[in-house]
């Protein structure tokens, strides 16, 4: 049956058809929907793991047990899971195992723009790159065959434009693939003596994979005009075909590691000029050049941001339309914390106290945006706590009483706990604030170990944050409601003044959760409002100034009353009974 399908959903369909039994992932844009779609098939066990390393190791265990397994993550998630990946390359698999890594060229929702293809080369594992949803489905199934035939985990690389684009796919039936578990100490116990024997097998496997790549249907030549030959992969292939049609010849690579050297040489010999069109790093181009072939690419095309058809057309000297432009300055519309976001009140209190806030990855990173501007560092998952420990140790008493770490509940479970263990163990006077909004917010509401629910929303184990922090040795652990500005201010002042380390849990569910009942929207009593703009300091999208007075957008306001706590004239009035 033909269907319009998101690239990520097509991968989930591929998992189903390939007979996959086990999926473990940590959410991350643009990979999240794969696992959310896979869980809709009762034949596949799916779970959210606390982080990508745990997810990958769990999937490895399922493969070892003899069931086809899978994990998905965004590019930076593979950094976290790199440790098991590199050694799984040595052990190989029992039942097939496929790993999706989803890159985010253009950084639509990421903190960097790293190119995951380097991981395939470094870990010596094969990598497939689909260029649309139909290929996402077919390549997923083929990846399991490659995994079992060559005894290797397989990386399936997505990018935002393939993951989050819908195109037409044809679906098929599921086939089961189960293998028995067999004890095999030399293969699966990677201590030096065994690993030394596995490494040569890895090198041999790469040679066999190179041979496979020469004739695999994953790589294909589409001959057109011979003046220009383009080697390309992933979404870049689509832009190239859009721009050149039959004008140029194309070598479309579906497998980007290892590369088919003979196929590339043959293609190069048939065209007058050879160009590689690839987003981010010149990974293919450098390997082609190392073959001694004359090739260009990065000298014409940028290594930053994503491509588009116009960008490529321009690079090849073609004319592109400019489009109409207004003379007016169009103000930007950056993302903002939602109306009623529980993080807002807490960040307001931190800003008021003049705190140096070391932040983390999540919706609350928006605390760095004006008018709050209340975050001074964001690096990677969990770094808020570890960095505040280092910051405090480095500056001693100089900055004491001013530095806080803020981290979300899901990010804390992902990799904040180990940083907190360091604070407890090496004893810095750090103040850690866990922003517990009872969900993984940024990626679109996934459950985590603190919510008490599993990926299906069914009751599950629940980790008690207060008990966990106390068990680590923190005597000062307290909970505040971030809608209560006075309580936030008091908690922050007291914990920063304390000489020992402390944890504040700022607890209120995300305002976008369906279970959260909103209070009626507020209105401004125009006779009372003096237009002092005190309320505007919290940066709420529901608030604006209209004719010198504050105004509330009733379609956005959820009645959190953070703004009204700042009003010196009590001009905000509720439009109904409080829920």
């Amino acid at each position: 049956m033909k269907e319009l399908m998101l690239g990520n959903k097509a991968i989930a369909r591929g998992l189903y058809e390939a007979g996959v039994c086990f999926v473990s992932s940590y959410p991350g844009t643009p990979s999240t929907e794969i696992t959310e779609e896979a869980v809709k098939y009762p034949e596949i066990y799916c779970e959210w793991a606390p982080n990508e390393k745990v997810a990958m190791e769990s999937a490895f265990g399922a493969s070892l047990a003899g069931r086809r397994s899978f994990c998905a993550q965004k590019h930076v998630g593979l950094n976290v899971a790199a440790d098991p990946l590199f050694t799984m390359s040595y052990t190989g698999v029992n039942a097939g195992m496929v790993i999706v890594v989803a890159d985010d060229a253009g950084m639509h929702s990421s903190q960097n723009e790293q190119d995951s293809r380097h991981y395939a080369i470094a870990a010596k594992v094969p990598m497939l790159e689909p260029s649309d949803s139909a290929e996402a489905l077919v390549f997923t199934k083929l990846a399991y065959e490659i995994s079992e035939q060559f005894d290797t985990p397989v990386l399936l690389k997505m990018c935002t434009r393939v993951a989050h684009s819908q195109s037409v796919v044809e679906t098929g039936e599921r086939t089961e693939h189960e293998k028995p578990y067999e004890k095999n100490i030399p293969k699966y116990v990677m201590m030096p003596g065994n690993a030394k024997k596995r490494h040569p097998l890895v090198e041999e496997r790469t040679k066999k994979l190179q041979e496979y790549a020469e004739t695999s249907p994953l790589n294909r030549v589409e001959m057109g005009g011979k003046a220009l030959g383009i080697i390309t992969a992933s979404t870049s292939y689509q832009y190239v075909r859009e721009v050149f049609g039959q004008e140029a010849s194309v070598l479309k690579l579906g497998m980007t590691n290892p590369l088919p050297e003979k196929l590339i040489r043959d293609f190069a010999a048939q065209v007058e000029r050879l160009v590689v069109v690839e987003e981010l790093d010149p990974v293919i181009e450098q390997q082609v050049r190392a073959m001694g072939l004359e090739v260009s690419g990065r000298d014409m095309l940028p290594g930053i941001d994503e491509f588009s058809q116009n960008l490529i057309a321009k690079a090849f000297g073609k004319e592109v339309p400019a489009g109409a432009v207004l003379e007016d300055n169009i103000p930007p519309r950056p993302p903002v914390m939602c109306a009623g976001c529980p993080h807002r009140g807490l960040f307001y209190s931190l800003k008021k106290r003049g705190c140096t806030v070391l932040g983390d990855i999540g919706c609350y990173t928006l605390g760095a945006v004006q008018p709050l501007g209340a975050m001074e560092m964001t690096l990677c998952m969990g770094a808020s706590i570890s960095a505040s420990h280092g910051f405090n140790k480095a500056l001693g008493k100089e900055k004491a009483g001013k530095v806080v770490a803020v981290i979300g509940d899901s990010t804390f479970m992902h990799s904040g706990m180990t940083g907190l263990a360091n604070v407890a163990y090496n004893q810095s006077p750090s103040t850690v604030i866990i922003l517990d909004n009872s969900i993984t917010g940024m990626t679109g509401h996934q459950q985590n170990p603190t919510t008490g629910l599993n990926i299906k929303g069914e009751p599950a184990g629940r980790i008690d944050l207060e008990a966990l922090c106390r068990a680590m040795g923190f005597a000062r652990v307290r909970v505040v409601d971030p809608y209560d500005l006075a309580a936030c201010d008091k908690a922050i002042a007291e914990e920063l003044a304390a000489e020992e380390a402390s944890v504040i849990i700022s607890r209120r569910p995300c305002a976008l959760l369906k279970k959260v009942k909103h209070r009626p929207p507020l209105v401004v009593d125009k006779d009372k409002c003096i237009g002092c703009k005190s309320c505007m300091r919290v940066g709420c999208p529901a608030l604006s100034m209209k004719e010198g007075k504050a105004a509330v957008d009733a379609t956005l306001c959820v009645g959190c009353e953070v703004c009204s706590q700042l009003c010196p004239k009590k001009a905000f009035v509720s439009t109904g009974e409080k829920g």
Partner: protein
Amino acid sequence: METKNIIIVGVGGQGSLLASKILGDLLLREGYDVKVSEVHGMSQRGGSVITYVRFGDRVYSPVVDKGQADFIVSFELLETARHLPCLKEGGQIVTNTQQIDPMPVITGAAEYPEDLVEKIKAKGVKLDAMDCLSLAREAGSVKAVNIVLLGRLSHYFDIPEEKWQAVLTDNVPPKFLEINRKAFELGRNYQG
């Protein structure tokens, strides 16, 4: 057939994903090759969002570039202005006249430009502007702005109305179907 391009623009959270899903389904049923490209994640938090819909005999790129859009469907006036360079020469804009202040305007760091409808028209652009929020409210829900816009867009297509209605029926929950049908009609038959 040469590939046709539609972009749907608005503010994160306004419901553009449902509009693109309905449009994609309809065009697939009409026998076209279709690609729809969306943005998820951080920009959905009240930021400027854009969805691309492309259809034709064979569609390659999933995105629409500058000067390529046959239609711009916009949920908000500032976003219409922002994405004006995407419009193809002779292309058609269907826009809601609603204005939502972005954070730089809220904080006073920037001003919301005045008279955008007139300024865009002065560029010689075909602009169909309407207060979709009022029409959605008339249909029974302020959330039906997306379907009002879709109804208006349908006015420019050679596809029979019952086919649009059929796809609508398959894509919205039954309890909201009546509201959405009405919203579609109000958009389609709007007399500006």
